[in-house]
């Protein structure tokens, strides 16, 4: 028999899952770099909220710690690092160049979310845990939508944010499927994510200094041209 409290928490967790997915859609449809970054922060907050809810339900200190790590890394450190490393004009009110227009992008993101549901469907029905049933498909959808925005956006910072959104998806599923992962592994993963941001940020700064733009389409000097055999 499931208690009323557990049911309430599972309901709230499902709500958080829905909001994570909504934030993923919002990231695809937002045109400005700063807006995308804001939605990433919002999404990370919902991921952390899900960790707190499940942690409360299972009485697990580890999940509370995980939520705190999430907030410390994605909500506080990463936006701060980006702002410190990069000149303001890179992430402020500027439109992102997109390969595919926004309505089509939204449609593709929707298809990806459905595909994610089908991909992990058999696992979800086998798991029988309502928390896994909420988090695993949404996490997979977050991963796929993040990957799509990475491919569709041809600029450095939006691409980096796409990677972080993918990471959020993986984390969101991880809260449900690997809640008792050793804390040292969680910490190492968080530090690794911050390092990714620092390295890519430094690289982006060097690229803006040397090449003058961060549009990936401007970087096409290196490619394979067929050799003619005499």
């Amino acid at each position, binding site marked *: 028999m499931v208690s009323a409290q557990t049911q309430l928490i599972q309901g709230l967790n499902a709500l958080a899952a829905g909001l994570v997915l909504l934030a993923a859609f919002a990231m695809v449809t937002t045109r400005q770099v700063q807006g995308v970054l804001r939605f990433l922060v919002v999404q990370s907050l919902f991921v952390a909220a899900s960790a707190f809810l499940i942690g409360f339900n299972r009485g697990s200190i580890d999940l509370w710690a995980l939520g705190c790590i999430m907030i410390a890394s994605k909500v506080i450190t990463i936006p701060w690092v980006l702002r410190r490393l990069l000149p303001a004009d890179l992430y402020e009110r500027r439109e992102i160049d997109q390969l595919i227009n926004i309505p089509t992008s939204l449609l593709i993101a929707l298809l990806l979310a459905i595909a994610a549901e089908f991909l992990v469907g058999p696992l979800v029905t086998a798991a029988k845990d309502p928390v896994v049933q909420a988090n695993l498909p949404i996490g997979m959808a977050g991963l796929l939508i993040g990957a799509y925005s990475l491919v569709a956006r041809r600029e450095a910072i939006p691409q980096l944010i796409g990677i972080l959104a993918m*990471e959020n998806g993986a984390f969101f599923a991880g809260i449900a499927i690997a809640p008792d992962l050793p804390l040292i592994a969680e910490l190492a*993963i968080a530090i*690794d994510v911050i390092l*990714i941001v620092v*390295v890519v940020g430094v*690289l982006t700064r060097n690229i803006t200094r040397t*090449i003058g733009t961060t549009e990936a389409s401007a*970087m096409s000097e290196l490619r394979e041209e067929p050799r003619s055999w005499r």
Partner: protein
Amino acid sequence: MALIIAVSLPLLAAFLCWLRPLRRIAWAITVVFLALNLSAAVVIAWQVLATGRVVAVAGWLEADGLSALLLLMVTFVCIVAAIYSGGYMRHETGSKERLWWFYSNYNLFVFALAVVPALARVNLVWVAVELVTLFATLLVGYESTPGALEAAWKMAILTIMGAPISLFGFLTLYWAFRTSGGGTSETWQGLYAMAATMSPNLLKLSFLLVFVGFGAKSGLAPMHTWLPDAHSQAPTPICAVLSGMKTTIPLYAILRLLSIVLGSPDARIGEWMVVLGLFSVGIAAFLLLQVRDYKRMFAYSTVEHMGIILTAAGFATHAAAYGAVAQMLNHSITKSLCFYAAGMVLLALETRQISQVRGLFRISPFAASALLLCSLAIAGAPPFPIFLSEFSILSAGLRSGHSVAVIVLAVLIVIAFVAIFLQVNSMLFGEPSHPATRERAPRSCGTAILIAVAPVLILGVYIPGPIHSLMTLAAQQLGGH
């Protein structure tokens, strides 16, 4: 104990290179520490041969045959590349100001490479593999030219995009391990033991995700596109480590996971690996025919060899696993030699275009002989070690009943062989395109080439007993089921 030393030495070296008073001797620090590290790796290999496995911190830092072999490879390739970099970096990159930064970063890169095989805890393997990618990115972009930055960017996006995908895979793997009663300490050893009882669906999903994420890092087609760019733009000693070890280390994690998945019932994933491996070999073989830059040529040859190793692992027999391990070892020692030779040509002629180099034997006999030797070795000509390992892979494939795959693989290997030969032949002979060089190549480069040549010459005709038993142990880890 030796294992803890082997893992912490590069960190200490990185710290020392960063200290202001020691910045001038960063190169010497790097070489000395790597020499210590190599001896630690030899000690570990010795202990593994004696006892089967070395346990430094139970459940966290452990080494079996495969780990010991990889540690030996990492330290050997990295020390030779470090020696080579002494003369090369001063000669080629000009600015001495940031050399300490280069070496500090290089030591961190070595740390990440060495820690992957030494880790027993599977979640941390993901972290370490990501660190390898990050430090490699910084090293590829070291020269800060537009080309180098573009190459570093392509590499960063393609390989870091794999990070969340493989993280998802590792979390799924943990889930599979835990729900089948494995507890929370998920080690490689524990996974081998639980392979038969874990849910095959979960295992397959996690392997798929890790394969996509790490396959991009090890340059398997169709995620190989960063590899030739990075290799044409990075400083040559970094190319040697990139091709020799940076691609092999994620492949090592894939192969370990593959052997676990193969241990579960009804897994037909081996056949898929054969197909994907052959795809990489095929793509590389045809790109080798039309490549115009000799550093890119060796990069495509790396894609080819990664494909061969994956194919061998897909055959899933003990003999094929032995071939895969031998191919890993032979590829990393031979490929690093290739880049040292290519670097000598680049130093002497300052062009990367194959068509602009003619008559190299008359321009720089030393560079020409090194190039001839290493391309014979990497293409797999008979007296060299790669011939032996490719031959054993082909025969193991025939014995395991994959005759079609073996025929395709053999044809593709021959195409790659011919392609490398046509390319190198056009560089070595004919009317010299440049005047003969008076200037002597940096002494450290020559020394590094002589050190790197030794195992390539020896392992082709004689495999010392301890190395053979180490490879057999390693093959048991990969194909023991």
